């Protein structure tokens, strides 16, 4: 009997090892362990054995059964693994083929720079304000201490649509609006960005361009001095142009500020060594700035004896050209899709 069981075990092991798929294994399992299997028959026949043989053989049958079961389980595991790997093999793809391209748009470089400037100043507590592009002579010039006939108006030949209305030549127009609008005379810290227009068009000037204007007004005894203006612009320039940039304040003249300065920065291109871009001076003129002229304060509702302020402005187009290495200003306004679509990703911080 023992030999017979031994044989069953061996045969079973061999049959199991030959099985190639799960269905066959299932069939074999029924054959080996099912009700009609040899093993079941032996178990059923245990009663006919001598009483002292019974437990021994019974236990041996169970051992054989356990062994077969474990063999089947092992085989099942192996076959499942094999089936899975075959399936996976079949599903193999060329992972070097291109991924599905999802069309990605792009942000115009001017607006990229505008957003960066806005974020910088908002982080310093400035409000971003907006003003009309179709301005009145009053806000564009007169309230900024530029009466009719003022020679400085020559610097800004303008697009008038009537004797009163014109396309703003400078975002400074928003200064007057902000001051007048602030009836509580609370401190002002604002910037304004946007389109400006002047009657000139050549390789380096577009009749439409973009500016940012900043204005800080507060009570005189608080810190609104040239030194504060300098510090503020240092932050601005270092963020927008580069940490290594140095600033040079050059006394200048704008009717709406007194004193007035033009602010030069270390030449973007040569780093100050001197090159054709900076006319060998090592400096690039970047901003106009100054302390708000007392007449401007007065005309816009602030008592110059009590209040002081500083203001600054710069062209955004050139900053954008510098930042992205754009070689010709005309690219900014031609809107060639091959140009636009280059500005389609996050820039380095």
């Amino acid at each position: 009997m023992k030999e017979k069981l031994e044989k069953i075990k061996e045969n079973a092991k061999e049959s199991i090892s030959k099985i190639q798929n799960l269905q066959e294994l299932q069939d074999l399992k029924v054959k080996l362990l099912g009700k009609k299997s040899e093993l079941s028959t032996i178990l059923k026949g245990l009663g006919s054995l001598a009483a002292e043989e019974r437990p021994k053989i019974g236990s041996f049958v169970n051992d054989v059964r356990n062994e077969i079961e474990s063999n089947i389980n092992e085989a099942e595991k192996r076959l499942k693994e094999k089936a899975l790997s075959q399936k996976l093999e079949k599903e193999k793809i060329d992972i070097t083929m291109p991924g599905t391209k999802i069309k990605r748009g792009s942000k115009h470089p001017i607006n990229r720079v505008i957003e960066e400037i806005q974020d910088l100043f908002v982080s310093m507590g400035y409000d971003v304000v907006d003003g009309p592009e179709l301005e009145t002579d009053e806000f564009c010039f007169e309230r900024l201490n530029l009466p009719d006939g003022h020679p400085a108006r020559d610097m800004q030949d303008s697009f008038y649509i009537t004797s009163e209305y014109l396309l703003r030549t400078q975002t400074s127009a928003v200064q007057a609006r902000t001051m007048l609008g602030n009836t509580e005379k609370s401190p002002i810290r604002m910037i304004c960005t946007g389109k400006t227009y002047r009657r000139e068009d050549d390789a380096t000037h577009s009749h439409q361009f973009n500016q940012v204007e900043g204005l800080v007004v507060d009570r005189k005894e608080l810190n609104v001095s040239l030194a504060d203006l300098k510090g503020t612009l240092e932050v601005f320039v270092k963020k927008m142009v580069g940490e290594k940039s140095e600033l040079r304040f050059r006394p200048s003249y704008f009717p709406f500020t007194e004193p007035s300065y033009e602010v030069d920065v270390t030449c973007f291109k040569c780093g100050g060594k001197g090159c054709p871009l900076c006319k060998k001076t090592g400096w690039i003129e970047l901003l106009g700035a100054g302390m708000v002229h007392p007449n401007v304060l007065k005309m816009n509702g602030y008592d110059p004896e009590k209040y002081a302020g500083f203001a600054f402005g710069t062209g955004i187009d050139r900053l954008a050209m510098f930042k992205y290495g754009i070689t010709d200003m005309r690219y900014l306004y031609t809107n060639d899709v091959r140009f636009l679509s280059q500005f389609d990703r996050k820039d380095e911080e």
Partner: protein
Amino acid sequence: MKLSKNFVRDYVDVQADLKTLAEDMTRVGNEYDSAEKLVPSTKLVIGKVLECKAHPDSDHLHVCKVDVGTEVLNIVCGAPNVRENIKVIVALAGAELPNGFLIKKSNIRGEESNGMICALYEIGIDKKFLSEEDKNGIHILPDDAPVGKDPVEYLKLDDEVIDFELTANRGDLLSILGMAYEIGAIYDKKVKEVDLSHGESGDDLNNSFEVRVNTDNCKLFLARKALNVTIKESPDFIKNRLIASDIRPINNVVDISNYVMLELGQPLHFYDADRLGNCIETRMAKNGEKLTTLDGIQRDLEETDIVISDGTRAIGLAGVMGGLDTEIEETTKNVLIEAAIFDSVRVRKTSKKIVRSEASNRFEKGLDPNRTYMAIERAVKLLEKYADATIQTGTVVYDKTDKTEKKIDILVKDINDLLGTNISKADVLDVFRRLDFKYTENGDLITVTVPTRRLDISIKEDLIEEVGRIYGVDNIKGKLPVVPMKIGSVDKTQREIRDKMISLGLNETLSYVLINDKDVHKYTNDSFEELKLLDPMTEERNVLRYSLIPSLYKIYEYNKAHYIKDVSIFEIGKGFFKKEEKYGENTKLCALMTGEYYLGINNKKEIDFYIIKGVLEEILNYLGYEGRYSFCIPKETLKEFHPGQVAEVNVNGEIVGVVGRIHPEISKEPVYVFEINLDNLLAKKVSKMKFKEISIYPSIRKDIAIILDKNISADEISKVIKKAGGNLLVNYEMFDVYENVILGDRRSVAYSLTFGSNTKTLTDDEVNPIVEKIIESLEKNLKAELRK
């Protein structure tokens, strides 16, 4: 303003080299464009042509032997006026001429050439300053020119010039004397006095000559007379200083008027006194009055022009240009000198119309009356000295100017508060002393007397600027304002729309606001008055746009011309208008799409109406208007759009925009656009974003397909489904449409209907009757037929 270093040295001691001077001037606010030698050539010597023979292999070249002192050089010369025994300017081998032109030893058609015989224009003097002979050939030096020596020095052209770009307020720097004060302040040097000494004789001019002024636009008019002048060439120093200042020398008399203007900043006018009569009048021109100016052009004058007249007719445009009839000529004997101040705004307007000149520029910037008196004396002094004139006694004076000196009170604290500095009183006073400003002290209070030459200084802040610039802005240390903390505010809506459009695959553009007037009323039926420029730069851009569509369409055309087929672009910008006498501007969002809109190589889709509509809907949904908008057929035809593919966008009953295909007659290629008035749209409040409880019960989806008349719109079908569906119908979406020949005028439309409840799991028994009801309603209301 071109500053001749030799010229300014007459009045102030300048030790600094040219570049340093230019940089130091820049630091105090006077930017420069260039700083160069008047003759920027190197290795020039005076040579003598010993021999001059025709080149054997040329019909115009000469082969010369030139003695340059140290050796005799063989030089090939092409100038027509080269000959033996003349003294010439020779550029030796290795010389550098303007524009980087290098002289090398060479061989010209078989003849050795070891240098170049130069024309003046070749060594750096502009042709406009040269005589006819010098324009066409080499310069022939006088016989006494020393061979081997520097010709630039010999010709007294050894000057250096800084070309300053002055600010509009510093009219005082449009003079050598003004520059001398500025340089004196920088280097702490005293300015020398101007020599005004001269003789005078004869009867007082006041007895024989009258100055009449009949306009407020002339506040000062001085006249003097110089008799028996000799007209000749000016001495070299005058000619060379004029050339250095970019003024063409003419003759000694004319040159002196220009020389004094350069020196003192006061423009003068010299008349041929014998052609003038015995009076001179300043008045406003009469309408229609005519005058032939110096340049020979007859001008039509207007009432706004100030003219000089001889009592009957106009003889000059005050401050702008003299008349032809009374100009100084070779034969002029007696000269009447005018030194006057005319209103800057008037001069500016007239000169803008006629011509901008050195004189008009100075009038425009404003003049110091004290300087006017000085200038007329200086002019007669020079006429006496360099034109052999006899000066007639007396000056005829008309003077309504206020010459009171301005006094400004200032505290050191005012200065330090505004500059953010800690400058001592002693340093402040030192600045005023260097600027040659007189002052008195009373404790902390300083009272500064501003010299009349500094018309730009009238308030305390102007003085603070002076202190700042002479003390040195570089010495002021930057700091950040100490202010109460607050959050800066910015409206990010536009930025978010922009980002959303970009994420939908569109490229942002930035186009011009100025367009052509033939496009301004296109793509809209809105009534508005167009805003035309009074003085456009080009007719191509003569009006402010109302819609952005013409701008974007132009961009499309540009890209198409460059073989770019897929153009999906957008822009947020302003449109301008005048309505009911009011000017206004609106912020608009505009998009244009054509070509393919793709999601990968194998998933391209030709852009059609529904894609751009989808983009627009995505924006509207994103902004919170989902369920509040509809698209309707325009009531009035929009003639630039395809009549069957255009819709007005209606949000809460107001039309806020348009979407459609551009009319095939405008663009054969299918081009789609939309434009939304963001001001109108965003004025409609959206509800706050709020969480809605998610149903824990599963929903049931049922699909139906119906066949119905093509002309029944999706909107109409939706309305029927929604009404019949009741509140258990939580969503319905069209997922398939098709048309074919068999269907003819009808189309098949498939909808997926989703039913759900927040309180229970729905069963088919509950849902099927609703679906039945929907189908019945579709059949009844729209004559639809269920597809089985």
